[in-house]
């Protein structure tokens, strides 16, 4: 029962709701994708079914005048009008789908003018996430200081400023209802900052600062996870961090 339920329903990433909300509700890009997929899929299936029912070969059918003969290039079949029609129709459809993808793209990418309530430096490494100050900043020997850098951050335990060996779980606490920017960089190889609940993903690249953001007001308060989505080695699947969204008085 619940397996069947799982196969039919799924929890969509939260960010998709915003695509629907600001960009036309039911007409949002995700919904349209879904509906058009269904329509095209049904068209193919129904047409094929129709062919199989009405154009089956029966024993004793006479050969059509077009029938294939070995060693003879057959008559060309075709109908330019129909062929042009099914060139133009998909062209219009995909152009439309590209067009309606632009709005959400602005929403996700256009952060230049956006005022961030909090900006958090995120450092990824094999295989941990650390938040706040880049790791191994020797000026901050006192663990208490970690928490005071950003108001709400709890750091990974970096004893003696060594590279953590055994997959420590990083954690981060952010206030409810804030626009949070993450500035991402990597210590070693490629990683990807993946917040599956929300549906954002941004590669974390060594020697390059990338940026992603979220609006914690779109969530309920509570605990969420951050996973690594870009393959980074042995403990790739264990590279996670907790993110807490808490109401601040």
């Amino acid at each position: 029962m619940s397996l069947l339920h799982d196969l039919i329903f799924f929890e969509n990433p939260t960010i998709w709701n915003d695509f629907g909300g600001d960009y036309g509700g039911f007409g949002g890009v995700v919904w349209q994708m879904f509906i058009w997929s269904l329509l095209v899929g049904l068209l193919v299936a129904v047409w094929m079914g129709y062919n199989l029912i009405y154009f089956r070969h029966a024993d004793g059918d006479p050969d059509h005048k077009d029938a294939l003969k070995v060693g003879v290039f057959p008559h060309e079949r075709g109908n330019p009008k129909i062929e042009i029609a099914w060139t133009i129709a998909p062209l219009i459809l995909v152009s439309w789908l590209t067009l309606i993808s632009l709005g959400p793209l602005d929403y996700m990418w256009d952060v230049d003018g956006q005022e961030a309530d909090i900006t958090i430096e995120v450092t990824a490494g094999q295989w941990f996430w650390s938040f706040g100050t880049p790791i191994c900043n020797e000026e901050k020997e006192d663990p208490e200081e970690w928490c005071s850098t950003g108001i709400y951050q709890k750091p990974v335990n970096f004893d003696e400023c060594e590279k953590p060996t055994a997959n420590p779980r990083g954690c981060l606490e952010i206030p409810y209802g804030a626009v949070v920017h993450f500035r991402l960089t990597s210590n070693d190889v490629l990683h990807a900052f993946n917040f599956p609940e929300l549906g954002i993903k941004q590669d974390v690249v060594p020697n390059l600062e990338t940026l992603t953001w979220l609006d914690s007001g779109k969530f309920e308060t509570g605990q969420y996870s951050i996973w690594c989505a870009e393959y980074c080695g042995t403990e790739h699947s264990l590279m996670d961090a907790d993110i807490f969204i808490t109401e601040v008085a």
Partner: protein
Amino acid sequence: MNRKSLKILSLGFIMSILLAISAFPTGDSIPTGITDDNLVKNGCTCHTDGPMSSDVVITLSDLPEKYNVSQVYTLTLNISGGPDALADGNQGGFFIQSNYGTLESIDNNTWMPEGETHLTHNEEGNNYREWSFNWIAPESDSKVVKFTVYGNSVNGADGNAGDYWNKGEFSSAGVNAKIAEDHGELSMPQKLIYAFTVLVVTLSVVVVGNRMVVNDQSFEDVIKSYWKCVYPWLTTTDHKYIGTLYICTGFGFFFVGGILGLLIRWQLFEPRIDGDFLTYEEYNSTFTMHGTTMIFMAAMPIIFGFANYLIPLQIGARDLAFPRLNALSYWLLPTGGFVVYMGYFTGGAGDVGWTGYTPYATGDSSTTPGTDFWVAGQIMLGASSTLTAINFLTTMLRMRAPGVTMMRMPLFAWSIFVTVFLLLLSIPVFTVALILLMADRTFGTLYFDVAAGGDPILWQHLFWYFGHPEVYIVILPAFGVLSEIISTFSRRPIFGYTSMVYAMATIGIISFIVYGHHMFTTGADPLFRFIVMLTTMLVAVPTGIKIFNWLATMTGGSIVLKTPMIFALGTVITFTIGGITGIILASIPVDVALHDGYFVVAHFHYVLVGGTIFAFLGGVYYWYPKMTGKIMNEKLGLIHFALSFIFFNAAFYPMHNVGIEGMPRRYATYDAQFTELNEFITIAAFIFGFAQLIFVYNVIYSYKNGEDAGNNPWDGWSLEWATASPPPHNSFTEIPTLKLAEEED
């Protein structure tokens, strides 16, 4: 070419290779001065960035062979060799750790950092190369204690230049310890490979022995009679033999890759801790080898096997333009494949993913020899494909029979024509990228080294510039097969032949400008990402034309539902699903959530298995009569199709759901919320895998018991049906002329 010019040519080759080697930008150290991570991980945080040196000798004296419970031993550690020490100041340092018992400092030269269990030197201690300390033996007498020691022999000068370090291991056992002989634990895939090897050797001994006894032959006679069978296959340049070899090798690797796929599925049956079934490292090797095998050693060889066999027949040529080059292309395949798999015998196959992203692939963290073999083998496979591309282009442009103009080639021939163009333009880029990667890994060059200023995204550009045309290289021939089968079994010419050809050519051209859609989350230029979103969407147009043309071919036709046709129709359904999810993924805002997740895995398995493999399984049923003269068993074929189609969808459809809910790909373990669906997927995948055994059985069974096919069992039109089944040695007794239906009327 005469001997002299050959000599000059070889000299030229050697000169250019030497020149190329001298041009490698090499460096001993990384300019930014970052120390080697590996050393830190090994526990040697000492002041050095060089490699381990065997000049440094480490001894640990007074360590008993058998220890007494809880007794205190005073051990002395000595390092010798390395640089001559300056008279005053620093001479060396050490690090020692034991897995049982307790280490204890007894003087001012050594200390144990707080919270740690290892001993190391302190400021005073680094004026010596010999240190003493206590070791308290464990309370149990059944332990085998291992000591891991690092010693650094330094010259006392500022900086670490001229310092050398080494690692040593020592052990002591309790009186009741069971000392296992140190074979080293075999990894799961290694066990499998050894098991297979044992099985094959045993089987061959039994078979040979059986023949010796039953036929009363000597060992030499039996081997000679086998040699007589094998020899023609080893030395052939005949396109039909080579085609058959390609197809068999391809399906052989498909079997191996399939087993790897099932290992992946079993690992993901439930969330597993490291080593529960496969260790995470083995899992990473497994999916790397699965991807590499399926794309380069299964899909492409199957395609080029069919191309080898059929293209000369379809265009009315006796053979390919360069038969010996063709043989070379083939033999590079099993060789390259073997090299890629060598990793399993050297402590773990490559674990960089089939995409081999740098900087992970350049680093020490990836399984070292395995990844080197992965790179080397891939270069061979790249060379093989490049040669094949040249061979086919020449053949198809120069050797068509009278009447076979370009616009009268069968659509399978057209699909191969477009494919080899793509291959020729894309695979050298990958090969060059691999050579750069190999140089980085083995010669110490810095092309992809981020710390030295290399571009962290460069590899992705090079890889996907090849990688995206590559997926069309494997899907276009499938389109060709579908066009042939659907037209033949509808007993009508294909609808819109010309638009089919233009559609394939368009897909080929667009394929070079869409690759950026693999990099939507990298942080590449937004304009670049926007443009590739648009071009990716455009691929749907020619692909849609093809699907509609197939359906229109059936409309008004006279459809005969035999196994090849049923496979073709199944493929149209599964491929359509794969195509649609491709469009969904092309939309950046949606892709950002789905990228690198199971939705993507579902998508490309729908395209590659549901498209390429299903189409070519249909192709086997369709052309098997031509190749062997026997028709494959219809009933077994239908059962094979039904099981494959149902369980393929059962295995891969739920991956869409898992992906939307957020499960990332390449995860060796996962969040418990996905367990139920993953169990379902795993069970379906195993049934899908076992269903393929029916196909293997059918191929063997029909070879012995199949009905005679005759020249043209399906009433096809193209020239391969005009010759005998199987075709005679030179393919045609007389070069045929393709007639035109209009002239016939």
